[in-house]
Each structure stands twice: as C-alpha cells, then as structure tokens.
C-alpha cells in the first residue's frame, strides 16, 4: 500500500482494523458510561420524585381564600324555601312514639280502637251467654262453645232473646254449639262478618308555602370568588410545572445517556483506530518481510499513536536490511575473487550468484 505511493486516507469503513482490540476497549468504555448513567440516573430520578412529591404537597397544601356561602337572613344557611304546615287549633296530635318503646294503645289509632271495641263485645257476650248455669269462653269470630245442663234448651231460649243475639252479632260470633254428646250446633242469623280493614279517618290539614327571602350577597363576593379560583388555578399550574420539571429531568437523562453512548462508541472506535492503524501498517510490512521483501518503510500518518513503537519497527527493518547488505557485499567479493582466480565457472559461484540475485531483488 505504501509502496504504491497512493496517499492513504482514513475512511469509516477502515476504522475497525482490529475488531477484537478496538471493540473491547470501546465496549468497555460505553458499558462503564451506561452503568454510571443508569445507576446514577436511577438515583437522580428517585430524588427528583421525592422533591416533586414534596413540592407538590407544599403547593397543594396552600390554603386558598374560600368562596363565601350565601344565606337568606343569616339565621339559616340552608337557603331552601321554607314550608309551613298549619295545624288545626286545638287538635294536638300526639307525637309519634319511639319504635323501641312499649306500645300503648292509642285512643285515636283505628287499629287500637277496633281492638278495644272487640274486647267490650266479648264482655257483653259473656254476660249474656256464659252466666250460671252455663259456662263458655267467647272469642271474636269463633264458634261459641257452651257447657250447660240441658244445653240445647238453654241455647234455644237465649236465641229467642234479641239482646243475647245482638251481643253475638256484635262480637261476630255466628255459630253457637253445645258441648257434650248430642249437643246441637246453631247458626246465629245475620251474624256480622269480621271487618277485614281498619277504618281510617283523615282529618283536614293545611299547608302554606312561604317564599324565602333573597340571599344576602357580600360586597366583595365577586373578588373573593375570583381570588379563590385564581388561587386554585395557580396551584394546578404549579403542580403541572413541577410534574413537567420531573419529566424534563427524565427526558434529559435519557437523551444525554443515548447521546453519550453513541458519541462514546464513535469516539472509542476512532481513538483505538489510532492504535490499530499503526499496528495494521506494521502487520503489512511484517508480511512483506516474511516473504523476503524489504521495501522502503514510510512514516505514520499525523495523529497516529504508537510512534515510538513504529520507530522501533523501522530500526528493526533497517537492521535486517543491513544484514542483507552485508551478505551482498561478502558474496559480491567472493564472486569477484573467484572469477579473478579462474574459478568463475564453479558450481559454488553459480549458487552464490543466485543467492546474490535474490538478496538484491529483496532490497529493491
């Protein structure tokens, strides 16, 4: 290459001359940078997250001026339209009792009233039908079972008594039966069926809707609303800024890391090329020397490393060339002396001439 006289120029294709050496050093350098960037970057983000959380908490914890609550007259904050139920005068309705308390029969509750009336009817039945000589236990809407001597005659006599029959009707007892063998069962005519529903009476009531007075608006109400929302929006903006700052750090770290890796990879290859280049050049000369060619050795390019090493190589090359030249001088002297002595045709001289020719060609 050097012998051809063409100016060798660095090209990107030739940058990787000694892959093993160059890649090893470059990858090591890139790996160190990657480990540092990743490890320290992780800690940076950890601290950045902490700082972000603290800053966000501090911002969000800031007290904003509150919006004043509008009230109608200052006594009631509900602001609802009032409703008034007018109670009829003199009708003091009892307050509803707590559910857990013992139930006291009410004089107005239809259910309690009906029960009370039924008890009264049974008392009347008992007085009419169960006095001596008869005995019985009347129950509302149940057959009346009577024990009495000559029971059938007793029942017939009672059924003729309108008061006794009315008492049965009032207690909704429609059947009277004599207890014992041969006892008759008599149906009470027109006995009342037991009522299935309680009778409810609704009393009249009135309701008056009174419009609430208009709310009282403070004089600086508008300013306070603006101040409140300005503060809230500022908090939101600052929170977003803080979060954006955290993301910015992350992006800068990633971008810096990638740029650093690429830059280092290129720089590493180029830097090691300055070592691999001279080694490659020396290898070319070594191959020539191995094949018996001792061409002129050219200098390294500007910027190459291993300058001292290359000087050693040049000296070695010159040393071998000197050996060859010494041999050439000796051989030439022997050949000349042999020819003068008349031994120029000797086979040994021919061998020496062949050797001389090879050595001279190797130095061209």
């Amino acid at each position, binding site marked *: 290459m050097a012998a051809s006289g063409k100016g060798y120029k660095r090209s990107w294709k030739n940058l990787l001359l*000694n892959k093993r050496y160059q890649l*090893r*050093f470059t990858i090591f*350098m890139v790996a*160190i940078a990657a480990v*540092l*960037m990743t490890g*320290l970057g992780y*800690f*940076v983000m950890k*601290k*950045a997250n902490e*700082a972000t959380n*603290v*800053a966000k908490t*501090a911002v969000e914890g800031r007290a904003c001026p509150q919006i004043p609550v509008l009230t109608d007259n200052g006594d009631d904050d509900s602001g609802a339209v009032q409703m008034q139920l007018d109670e009829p005068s003199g009708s003091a309705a009892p307050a509803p009792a707590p559910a857990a308390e013992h139930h006291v029969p009410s004089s107005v509750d239809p259910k309690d009233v009906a029960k009370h009336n039924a008890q009264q009817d049974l008392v009347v039945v008992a007085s009419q039908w169960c006095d001596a000589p008869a005995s019985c236990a009347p129950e509302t809407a149940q057959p009346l079972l009577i024990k009495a001597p000559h029971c059938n005659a007793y029942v017939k006599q009672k059924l003729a008594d309108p008061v006794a029959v009315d008492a049965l009707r009032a207690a909704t007892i429609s059947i009277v039966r004599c207890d014992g063998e041969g006892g008759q069962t008599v149906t009470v005519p027109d006995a009342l069926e037991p009522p299935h529903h309680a009778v409810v009476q609704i009393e009249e009531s009135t309701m008056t809707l009174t419009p609430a007075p208009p709310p009282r608006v403070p004089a600086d109400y508008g300013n306070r609303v603006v101040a409140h929302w300005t503060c809230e929006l500022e908090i939101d903006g600052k929170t977003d800024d803080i979060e954006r700052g955290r993301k910015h*750090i992350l992006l800068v770290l990633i971008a810096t890391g990638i740029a*650093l890796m690429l830059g280092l990879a290129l720089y590493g290859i180029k*830097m090691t090329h300055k*070592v691999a280049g001279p*080694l490659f050049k020396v*290898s070319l000369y*070594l*191959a020539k*020397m*191995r094949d*018996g*060619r001792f061409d002129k050795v050219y200098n390294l390019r500007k910027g190459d490393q*291993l300058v*001292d*090493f290359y000087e*050693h190589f040049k*000296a*070695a*090359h*010159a*040393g*071998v060339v000197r*050996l060859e030249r*010494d*041999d050439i001088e*000796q*051989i030439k*002297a*022997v050949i000349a*002396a*042999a020819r*003068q*002595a008349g*031994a120029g045709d*000797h*086979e*040994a001289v021919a*061998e*020496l001439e062949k*050797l001389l020719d*090879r*050595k001279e*060609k*190797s130095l061209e």
Partner: protein
Amino acid sequence: MSDIPPATVIKDGKLDGDAPRERTESRPVYKRKLSNYLLDKKLQLRYVLLVTILSGLISGALGYMIYHQSRMASESLENGLAALTEGDSSWDDVQAHAVADLDSSDRALIYTMVGVGIGLVVILSAYLVIMTHKVAGPLYKVSMYFERMADGRLGNVTPLRHGDMLQDFYGNFREMHESVRTRLQSDLITMESAATALRTKAGGDARLADVLDALDKHVTHRKKQLL
C-alpha cells in the same frame, strides 16, 4: 519477486553447527510486577485518563443533580415547616431540629457521593491500567525484539503470556521473525558450502583465500547473531 525461493527450515530451524541450548541459559520467567504495569505511559494513561475523566464527569454531573434535587426537597420541607410554625415560638426547637436533620442528611449525601466517586475513579484507574497493560505488554515485548533485530540479532521469540491481547499481531511478528531467521540461516549454509568448495580451488590465490577467510568470519559472526 516470484523468483525468490521460499524460505526453508533446516533441522528445526537450527544450523548444523548450532550448539544445543542449555536450560541454564533460558531466560528467567517474567512475572507481572506492579511497577511494570505502566509500560507505555502515553498509550495507557491516555485511555485511563479518558475513561476516568469521563466517568468523573458523568458521576459529578449526575451527583450534582441528585444533590440539587435532594436540597430542593429539603428546602421545600423547611419552608413548609416555617410557614406552619410562623408566629409560634414554641415550635422553634422542633423546626431547628428538623432543619438540622435535613441539612445533615444532605451533607451525608454529598460525602457518600464523593466517597463513591473517588472509589470509582481509583478502581476504574487500576482496572484500566491492568487492561491497557495487556496491550502495552505485547507491544513492549515486540519493541524489545525490534531492538535486537536492529542490532542484527535474530534469536528465538517466546510466545505471549496468557491473557495478553494483540495475539494476532504478535503471531504475524513471530511468523516474520522466524521466516527471516530461517532464510538467513539457509543463506549461511549456502555461503559456508560455497566457501568450502572454493577454498579447494583457491590454491595459491592469496586474494581469494583472504576473501574466503573474511566470508568464514562473516558466517561465524552471523551464526552467533542467529542464536
């Protein structure tokens, strides 16, 4: 160049007159020493400094960011605490204690990072000196052989140590060295046999005899150089 005869190895690379090498003459086993690790300061320190400075810069920059973020968090906490306890002197002690704790934590972070950074630089430098020594070592060895070649001495070449780099390059060098040595030895044999053959023909030719004596001396000297 195609008419140049290939080099031939004669009797395992030794001339007939080569004396067998004695074990006592063998070179002492070279051991790695700490003082020998910086064989090529320019080459090694350049790479070591580059990686170390780069690592230092990355660690410094990111370390500063870590400290900055930590300091920001601390200052935010300190400000928040100050705002909470403003006008209430009973909290002064608590606040001072908290601020001192935060400052102490930040200082500890700095010390830790500086310590880790220094450790990193020291370990990296040591490792890189060893790593570059695996390149500088073979180059140093080849340089020594080059010096010998410059003096016309072409003795034996020993292999590289295990773990050295540039094995391919060293292989090329060894191949060249062996080839040149073998070829010169072969040439010596040719010259020696020619001198022997011509000496019988020299008869009373004093000049030829002198030239052959000089050739003999040259061959003897060269043999010593090739040992």
